[in-house]
């Protein structure tokens, strides 16, 4: 069995580890910190051109059903959000916009501001009415922690009883474990329950949790909260890495490596002034005017070393790769596609 090291705990790192494990590799995934994946909306903006079936299988799970195709949802501030794949309560099929929406906010909590959102929707010719329900949750406490108990959901269902709109738009309230509660709520109210598209909250965290658990299920060894600080390279091949966690530093050997360390936003690439560089000091970087699109140079999935030669067994994936086409608020699909390409490159196909 071949031994692979994957660095990075976001979409690209978890998907490539999962693919490798499925193909019989022994995989260790080292990741630390909050990945962009967890900051995202948890929806894939664009449809993949590659490995659609693998992505579906990777994301498939019991707890949170998905919907894909041309989808549309409502962002946390009431603007339109279009994507290709999302959790089922986040979006509707494009063209099937609800006739009327009740926008529900919790008093004094900024998670969803019903007046702002309703006005935005009305401006877009969607009939919407703001609705505020009493709440004691302080503005800096996330709602998920307050919506773990049955009573909280009972109370919510009661509050929503009288609403007559076709759909009810809620702030994001659920983690992965509690996703089924949205179905239950829908059953009790008899109306569509929609979750506002929310960045920097539970939807992204759900996706990151799901991805990590799928990788673990496939047999990937996960070293959480640890950082790869150096790669040992010999003759254009990586042979091992230094992994640091707290006071503990250890050396591991590897026959193949995938770098899926994310962009400068999560410190996957070093950002000095406005320039990105390689924290490992081994690989070539393509710079760009916008630090977001700069990153590792690659050839057929393999990273290029600073002498300009492609590595034999180090591939890259996700936000750490340079990409001229990446836009703000998109990149999950690209990360998954890159991961697939990286795995194929390592297998030499």
């Amino acid at each position, binding site marked *: 069995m071949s031994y692979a090291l994957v660095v990075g705990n976001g979409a690209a790192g978890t998907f490539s580890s999962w693919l490798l494990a499925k193909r019989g590799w022994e995989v260790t995934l080292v990741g630390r910190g909050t990945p962009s994946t967890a*900051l995202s*909306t948890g929806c894939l903006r664009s449809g993949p051109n590659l490995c659609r079936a693998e992505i579906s299988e990777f994301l498939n799970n019991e707890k949170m059903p998905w919907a894909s195709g041309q989808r549309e949802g409502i*962002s*946390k*501030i*009431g*603007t*339109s*959000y279009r994507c290709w794949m999302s959790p089922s309560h986040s979006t509707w099929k494009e063209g099937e916009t609800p006739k009327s929406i009740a926008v529900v906010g919790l008093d*004094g909590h*900024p998670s969803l*501001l019903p*007046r*702002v959102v309703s*006005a*935005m929707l009305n*401006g877009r010719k969607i009939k919407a009415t703001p609705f505020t329900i009493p709440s004691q949750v302080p*503005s*800096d406490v996330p709602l998920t922690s307050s919506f773990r108990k049955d009573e909280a959901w009972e109370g919510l269902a009661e509050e929503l009883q009288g609403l007559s709109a076709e759909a009810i738009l809620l702030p994001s309230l659920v983690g992965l474990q509690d996703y089924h509660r949205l179905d239950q709520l829908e059953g009790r109210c008899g109306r569509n329950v929609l979750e506002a*598209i929310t*960045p*920097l909250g539970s939807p992204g965290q759900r996706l990151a949790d799901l991805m990590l658990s799928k990788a673990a299920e496939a047999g990937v060894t996960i070293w959480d909260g640890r950082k790869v600080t150096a790669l040992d390279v010999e003759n254009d091949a990586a042979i091992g890495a230094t992994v640091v966690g707290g006071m503990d530093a250890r050396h591991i050997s590897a026959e193949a490596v995938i770098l899926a360390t994310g962009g*400068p*936003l999560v410190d996957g690439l070093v*950002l*000095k*002034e*406005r320039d990105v560089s390689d924290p490992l000091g081994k690989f070539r970087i393509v710079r760009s005017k916008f*630090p*977001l699109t700069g990153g590792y140079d690659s050839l057929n999935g393999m990273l290029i070393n600073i002498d300009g030669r492609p590595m034999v067994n180090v591939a890259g994936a996700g936000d750490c790769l340079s990409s001229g086409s990446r*836009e*703000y*608020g*998109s990149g999950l699909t690209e990360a998954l596609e890159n991961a697939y390409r990286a795995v194929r490159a390592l297998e030499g196909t």
Partner: protein
Amino acid sequence: MRTDVLIIGGGATGAGIARDLALRGVNCLLLEMGDFCHGASGGNHGLLHSGGRYAVKDPTSASECALENAVLRSIAPFCIEDTGGLFVSLPEDDPSFADTFVGSCRKANVPFEELTAKEALRSEPELSSRVTRCLKVNDGSIDPFSLVQANVDDARSAGAKVLNHCAVTGMTVENGTVVEVEVRDRRGGIPASIVPEIVVNAAGAWVDEVAKLAGCRVPMGLDQGSMLVMDGRHCRYVVNRLRSPSNGDIIVPNHTSTILGTTSRPAGAPNDVTVSREDVDLLVRETAAMMPSLRERRTIRTYGGVRPLLGGGGRGASRSFAMLNDERVGNLISVAGGKLTTYRLMAEKVSDRVCEMLGSSSNCRTHKEALGPPANGKGDSISAVRLVRKYGRSASSVDTTDARVVCSCEQVLRSEVTAVLKAGDALTLADVMRRTRAGMGYCQGFDCALSVLEIMMEQNGIDPVPSLNEFLGERERGLEHTSGDQLRQEMLRRHVLNGVYGLGVRE
């Protein structure tokens, strides 16, 4: 609608004139096309000059600053931080300049005190150990937004009518007299035509454009200057370079930040405030020569302003002011130049002239009557002091029992926003920011804009998308040169606002 005196421009000068005239019992109306402080009064360094900076080259302006510095400290202590100032020279600076400086300060009556290099380092530990000479002066740090608002409030209580978001767009001149003034009113408060007895043109960098409406000219040198806002306070004193005034000479601690400034280049138009990359590098390089640790600090944003300078403009131009009365239009007085520090003196001179023309004999009272409460009443909490600094006398109208915070960077209470909206002048998110500071912190409104918007919609019913875009666009303008951690913050902001919300933030 008729008025004895129409004042055009709601910067420090215009607001000061309105207050001065109102206190003398003169009927007046002030119109400002944007928000108060839309021009240089909102785009300056916030330094209450001791006069030191101009002592050598511009002694008239230096003496004016020294006198007014003392006056403002006594009438408006709430919006002034008594930081004191240091002038420091480095080995590469011409040593004879310091001697000239000392002599000139004496002549211009600018108080100062010499410190040894060791004493200087003890009182300002982040100073470069290369400092060779240090003079201590009466510089301070002043909040122009709260200063101007206090003038507006005081003018109103004395009977003046003061409106922001009302632009003067045309004038009818008959027989050498402005007989009618045309107004575009964005807030809805006055008729489209005003019939004034006297028109005071206090339009700052726009002074020539306004004069042109009456067929006159007030030739001014327009000069752009850039500033850099650094996160956190890094010095106790205002720190100045002891050399012939040039770029990147001054460090001003202000509220929760430290502001580096300034630069000088010819401006193409009154709103040509764009800050260049070169300015940013220069400001960090030059100020870090005096305080090396500034290199490591996080830059939050940049901003610029345009100085209307007498004559040709540039560093050599006088910082004094002039009042101009074109023979062709007898009832139009234009005033420009000067400093924020000397706004009251300018207002006094203009008001004297206006009263003379109106045949009124009442005297100026603005140097004697307080503009607001005394500073940091002993024993007050930090939050109470902060409120007084921002709102002066109106601080008491904020309900502090409601502890909900809308802007966590600047610790702005929800009830501050409510109080500001109730006062009626704030029409946009940026208007609320200038008054409350919500959005001025390191997240630049990313966190609080929506919550402020929600409150505004509740109270004023404003249109959300244009309001947000206008605000975020304005914030964005100062962020194009961000780097390091602040750039990361900016990327996150764009992921959310541009990418997810699809708002029209510029690329």
